[in-house]
């Protein structure tokens, strides 16, 4: 054991915990992970509520919905959502989902909870900034929430915050205080993410237990590790952009505002800036961000699939290589969001090439999952179902990605519902399924109790079918040119024909949303009343299942941290008595760990 870990262990044993130090300003990585998880779940409910508002508006435009007025007040006077606030709700929905639900719910939650447990460490390297990371995130949450209550309403320039809408305070109501709070909140979020990433990376580098080489780490740890590196390189660029945007807004610089711009009838005095520059900066961050949330979900998926198919993960090394390849490529594809920005077609074709290249490592992953499942002894736990659902969603969304990655097709499909369908499959729903898979799988380790399998399965099927019913029809709308970010489809003939389809999608949304209540009841109910879990309920091979208690305390292992002798996903191996071998199983190795 390294001396760093030894001293930590001593600290922990002589440490009486008060309520505040245990549940609020906790230094324990497991508690911090759970704090991230609960906060992300609350945000998910808010984000889902906003999607209901949008969907109801799209299905029943112009109709009075009394509850809108009750819930949204001046944003929906007389029960009719005002157009400028549709855009605001959409912006907040996107922002909340991407940053506060998926990033926090995957990297924050599973990064914190799993890294030390799975690599055999007592805690993160630097628990203090780990705690600060959560509380900075919390502060970012508060600021973002506050923006719902300012006079002019929350930000409304889309989650991408394109200028000039985001840069000119006078452009639309949401461009005022709402946008400033949005930028502040995102800046805080970036700091929080930086704290987290620093910790994840050095913990993985330095605190692995004896025998835990990089090549024996479970794929979840690999995925979070790589996602942390992505975050570390992508977020600071957004920070620079956010600072420049704030300067534009508050000190009247014109970094992102071109000359000759009119608001109303007044010519503005800005000169020299470039709104396209923001797009470059934003997407240099934005595309890796997609993978910051996707990679941990894919990692969780790989691990759950291997465990529940009772087979070694097919192509463990190829899985790592493909994660690395995806991560690398994600920094040189951002132009595919900008094909219609007037980009030089030659440059565009370079971005087409890099984008399509990502299909290769992505396909490697998909085939490896399928091969792992092939002839496996599949245990259909809820976690497994969500992992398999993720594979399906990833394929569906990935295929439409190949369409959109081609400039000539994207020029037709850009800013249509085809794009909405694409990213909700590949990013939204797939990553959400990663969260669900992770929660169902590691809940026993988090709370020492089991969630109900039956209700988990029902939750899965309703959600899985629901997602397809909601988002699949959007492809058809998109191919006929129905634009995204529209308040209502009542003005043009070619969009009006989708009245029925929009209503269908909305009903599917409401049912799928209601089905999440099953999850919430199962989650919170099992926390207190669930069946007591065994230490290793899924008979998994990785380290977190070797702790002394089902729900490990501060310091994770009571005695020495175990030594590792083999890879993370060894199932159905011929020389084992059971159909799995723990990573710590030293049969046949003699007493070599005693120096």
């Amino acid at each position: 054991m390294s001396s760093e870990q030894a001293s930590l262990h001593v600290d922990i044993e002589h440490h009486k915990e008060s309520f505040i130090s245990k549940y609020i300003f906790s230094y324990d990585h497991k508690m911090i992970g759970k704090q991230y998880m609960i906060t992300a779940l609350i945000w998910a409910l808010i984000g889902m509520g906003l999607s209901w508002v949008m969907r109801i508006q799209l299905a029943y435009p112009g109709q009075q919905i009394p509850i809108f007025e009750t819930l949204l007040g001046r944003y929906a006077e007389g029960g009719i959502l005002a157009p400028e606030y549709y855009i605001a709700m959409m912006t907040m929905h996107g922002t909340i989902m991407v940053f506060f639900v998926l990033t926090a719910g995957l990297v924050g939650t599973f990064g914190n909870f799993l890294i030390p447990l799975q690599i055999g460490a007592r805690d993160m390297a630097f628990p203090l900034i780990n705690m600060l990371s959560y509380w900075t995130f919390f502060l970012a949450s508060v600021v973002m929430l506050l923006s719902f209550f300012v006079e002019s309403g929350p930000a409304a320039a889309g989650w991408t915050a394109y200028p000039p809408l985001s840069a000119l305070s006078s452009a639309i109501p949401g461009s005022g205080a709402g946008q400033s709070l949005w930028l502040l909140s995102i800046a805080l979020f970036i700091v929080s993410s930086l704290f987290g990433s620093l910790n994840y990376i050095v913990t993985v580098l330095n605190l692995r237990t004896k025998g835990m080489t990089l090549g024996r780490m479970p794929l979840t740890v690999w995925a979070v590790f790589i996602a942390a590196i992505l975050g570390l390189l992508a977020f600071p660029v957004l920070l620079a952009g956010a600072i420049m945007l704030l300067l534009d807004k508050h000190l009247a610089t014109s970094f992102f505002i071109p000359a000759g711009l009119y608001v109303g009838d007044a010519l503005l005095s800005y000169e020299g800036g470039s709104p396209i520059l923001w797009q470059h900066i934003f997407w240099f961050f934005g595309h890796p961000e997609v993978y910051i949330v996707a990679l941990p979900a894919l990692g969780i998926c790989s691990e759950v699939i291997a465990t529940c198919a009772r087979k070694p993960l097919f192509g463990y090394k190829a899985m790592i290589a493909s994660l690395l390849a995806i991560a690398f490529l994600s920094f040189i594809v951002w132009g595919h969001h900008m094909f219609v920005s007037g980009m030089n077609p030659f440059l565009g074709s370079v971005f087409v090439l890099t984008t399509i290249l990502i299909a290769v490592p992505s396909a490697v992953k998909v085939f490896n999952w399928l091969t792992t499942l092939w002839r496996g002894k599949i245990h259909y736990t809820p976690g497994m179902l969500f992992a398999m659902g993720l594979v399906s969603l990833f394929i569906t969304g990935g295929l439409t990605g190949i369409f959109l990655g081609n400039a000539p097709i994207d020029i037709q499909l850009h800013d249509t519902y085809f794009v909405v369908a694409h990213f909700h499959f590949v990013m939204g729903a797939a990553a959400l399924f990663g969260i669900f898979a992770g929660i169902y799988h590691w809940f026993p380790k988090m709370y020492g109790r089991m969630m109900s399998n039956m209700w988990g399965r029902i939750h899965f099927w309703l959600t899985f079918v629901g997602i397809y019913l909601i988002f699949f029809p959007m492809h058809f709308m998109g191919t006929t040119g129905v634009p995204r970010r529209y308040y209502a489809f009542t003005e043009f003939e070619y969009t009006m024909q989708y009245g029925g389809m929009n209503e269908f999608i909305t009903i599917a949304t409401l049912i799928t949303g209601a089905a999440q209540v099953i999850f919430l009841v199962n989650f919170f109910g099992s926390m207190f009343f669930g069946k007591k879990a065994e230490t290793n309920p899924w008979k998994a091979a990785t380290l977190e299942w070797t702790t002394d208690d089902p729900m490990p305390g501060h310091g994770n292992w009571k005695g020495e941290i175990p030594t590792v002798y083999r890879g993370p996903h060894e199932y159905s191996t011929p020389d084992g008595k059971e159909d799995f071998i723990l990573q710590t199983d030293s049969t046949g190795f003699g007493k070599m760990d005693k120096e």
Partner: protein
Amino acid sequence: MNHDAVLEQKKIMESEWGGGKAPFGVSWRKYMMWIFIVSDAFTFGAFLAAYGLFRVTSAGWPDTYEVFTAFPFIGVEAPMLFVAMMTFILICSSFTMALAVSASYKNDRTKALKFLGLTILGGSIFILCQVYEWYHIIHDGATMTSNPWGVPLFSATFFMITGFHGLHVLSGLILLTITALKVKRGFYERRGSYEGVEIVGLYWHFVDLVWVFVFTFFYLL
């Protein structure tokens, strides 16, 4: 169990990345600083890239040799002389920092303190010079939105980039002061490692290196 697996495990347990130890003996603290530096470099990189774009796309970018001509007390115009001096001082402070690190590894507390003091002095002079320079061009009429020499983005990027760098120098000075106090009180001696000094040193070198880039791209080119 076959013999190969046992041998393999033996090799792993002894290897650098085999777990249970810090790879190459580098502590996580030092790795953390390195990683932070890479991340921070991306922020500066974004600012400098934005600056590059503005500069290339704006007609009539001011000639820095005509803007930065002030030098205190000499009464004549001296293009670039002042900023060259600032840069020189900052580079010297990097040099004294390196000496402080090597002295502290030799457990020579007085010498380490002396060089840390010199580093702090260099950094402080740099900041004061920067205040002078800001004062001067603000006096000449430069603001975030306009300046007498031409393109408004010139002064906007100037204030933004040198300001952001200045904040880094300032945080560096605070860190250095804390480190110097710790050296003085024997904190590192008791801990048995002067690594903390080296880690602050890494940060300081980084801040200086960034300045060299700012100096080259913003002033010289």
